[in-house]
């Protein structure tokens, strides 16, 4: 089975801090990591590989040259190959252009049975790239997958975590599967994995390599335009009370809630 995992390098979530003065969140642009929600996609791909002999996993990402770091993290967990789509013309891409670029790369790399992605990236938080890639490659988009019940013989049975419960569906392969956090517990890479990750060559492909017209890539190829970005202050000047006397404190709280028409 040929599996691909779509990953993204994001600013490190551990580095997010709140600016004391403005009440806005600041992240250090210097520190980057593999999108935490992609770890679950990588882990699930590796579990499929452990179950089905002859499975090969390719990790693919679109990003700046240093995004090989995120790809190596995935290789350290058990993926086999890494591909980075990196080109100046890719920058500024919205989800549509990103999906287009990834799809072009995947078409160049041949046929895949299964495409995994995380639920969304913790920076952009759209969750649109996975389903969009599925559409471009004419595969069904199985989103919010919380469990793979069965896989093999050209088919997959999954549970999808939706609003009021879990929907169980069967799909033919190839298919795109985006996973949610409850699907597994991602492993820590072991020493062997880390060594392999360091030694594995990550293939870097440009727009020309994937045969993508630059008018379809990056900002130029993006239907959407960000026209304004602003940082709302999150601080509220709330009333803070001492809770030493629970009875009195609860009275105050109930009064507060009553004033707000909440009880």
């Amino acid at each position, binding site marked *: 089975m040929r599996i691909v995992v779509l990953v993204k390098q994001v600013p490190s979530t551990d580095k997010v801090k709140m600016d004391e003065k403005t009440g806005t*969140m600041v992240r250090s642009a210097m520190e980057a990591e593999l999108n935490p929600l992609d770890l679950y996609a990588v882990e699930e791909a590796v579990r499929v590989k452990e179950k089905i002999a002859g499975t090969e996993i390719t990790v693919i990402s679109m990003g700046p040259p240093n995004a090989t770091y995120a790809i190596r993290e995935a290789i350290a967990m058990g993926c086999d190959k890494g591909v980075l789509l990196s080109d100046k013309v890719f920058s500024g891409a919205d989800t549509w252009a990103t999906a287009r670029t990834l799809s072009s790369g995947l078409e160049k790399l041949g046929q895949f049975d299964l495409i995994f992605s995380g639920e969304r990236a913790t920076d952009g938080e759209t969750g649109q790239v996975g*389903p969009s890639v*599925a559409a471009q490659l004419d595969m069904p988009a199985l989103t919010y997958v919380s469990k793979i019940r069965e896989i093999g013989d050209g088919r997959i049975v999954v549970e999808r975590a939706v609003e009021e419960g879990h929907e169980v569906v069967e799909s033919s392969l190839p*298919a795109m599967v985006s996973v949610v956090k409850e699907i597994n517990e991602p492993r820590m890479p072991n020493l062997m994995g880390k060594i392999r990750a360091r030694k594995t060559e990550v293939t870097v492909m440009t727009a020309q390599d994937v045969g993508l017209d630059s008018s379809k890539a990056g900002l130029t190829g993006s239907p959407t335009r960000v026209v304004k970005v*602003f940082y709302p202050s*999150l*601080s509220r000047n*709330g009333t803070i009370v001492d809770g030493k006397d629970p009875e009195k404190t609860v009275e105050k709280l109930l009064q507060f809630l009553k004033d707000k028409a909440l009880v």
Partner: protein
Amino acid sequence: MKTSEGKFQGVWTLGEQRDGEISSVSYELLAWGRELADKRGTTLASVILGHNIKEKAESLVHHGADIVYVVDHPGLEHFAPDVHAAILEKLVREFMPEIFIASATTYGRTVMPVLAAKVETGLTADCTELDIDQETGLLIQTRPAIGGNVMATIKTPDHRPQMSTVRPRSKKPLAKDESRKGKIIVKEYPDELYVSKVKFIEFIKDETTALPIQEAEIIVSGGKGLKDVKNFTLVHELADLLNGSVGASRQAVDMGWIPYSHQVGLSGKTVSPRLYISAGISGAVQHIAGMSSADVVVAINNDPDAAIFKVCDFGIVGDALEILPVLIERLRERKTINVKGES
């Protein structure tokens, strides 16, 4: 599709149904749609795909739609992403709406990216604010990223339809008006269009009757400060009393006190209830990212320096294990009194 491909007009909303019942998010979306259509001086249409749904279409008119496009077929009973997107593509290409919005539910967030890829247009995820630019008539889409610490305003200048998904509960539905009249257009397609690669097997309904946290009006969240899974029942009790849903910090989820679907924060769910009560949560920035858009925040924590107090409207510096039982008791008393008062 490019603006040059023809005349695009009208605002569309994507209706949702489960088991032949129209979901409430469909009506919230119509409130957004009505506002946009009026500002743009155009009609509002709603699209609903399902099976045995025809008779229900009228209620979309009662909630603000001028036109309802209905596709009713056994093949649409369950959500098949490929078939739903293919039908929507047919509709969009035939009627060419200028704006098409859906709820940012698992349905909307799955089918809309597929549709946007097929019709080659932009899609803005999880918007909290929509407006019409007075000068250009373009849709102005505002969305939070990184859990709300950055807000971005986005436009789709040259592609149509301009599409977005809209966060549930970001607007109240319009009052139902049964005297409203509208046009119901039932569309039929050849059977082969309904053949999906995805087959529905079963639906396992959550045992809880509480709303998923993304849709809840009231959320009571618990964290590490509760010390033990046994104490976490206090959070459940309080949520039940308030008819709310239960949330949790990442630590509480990681310790296995509650499933992941309840996690609030950057790697969990983003919530925007009317009331958010946090108990024993210090307020890591990743948690705050997921709840900062709540209307009213109440925080209970024993550390006066906890970050959660910066983002709360009412903070109690104290032990949640002492406060919660008293609060629960008081609310129970009030409930009993109310019930007695009614009888």
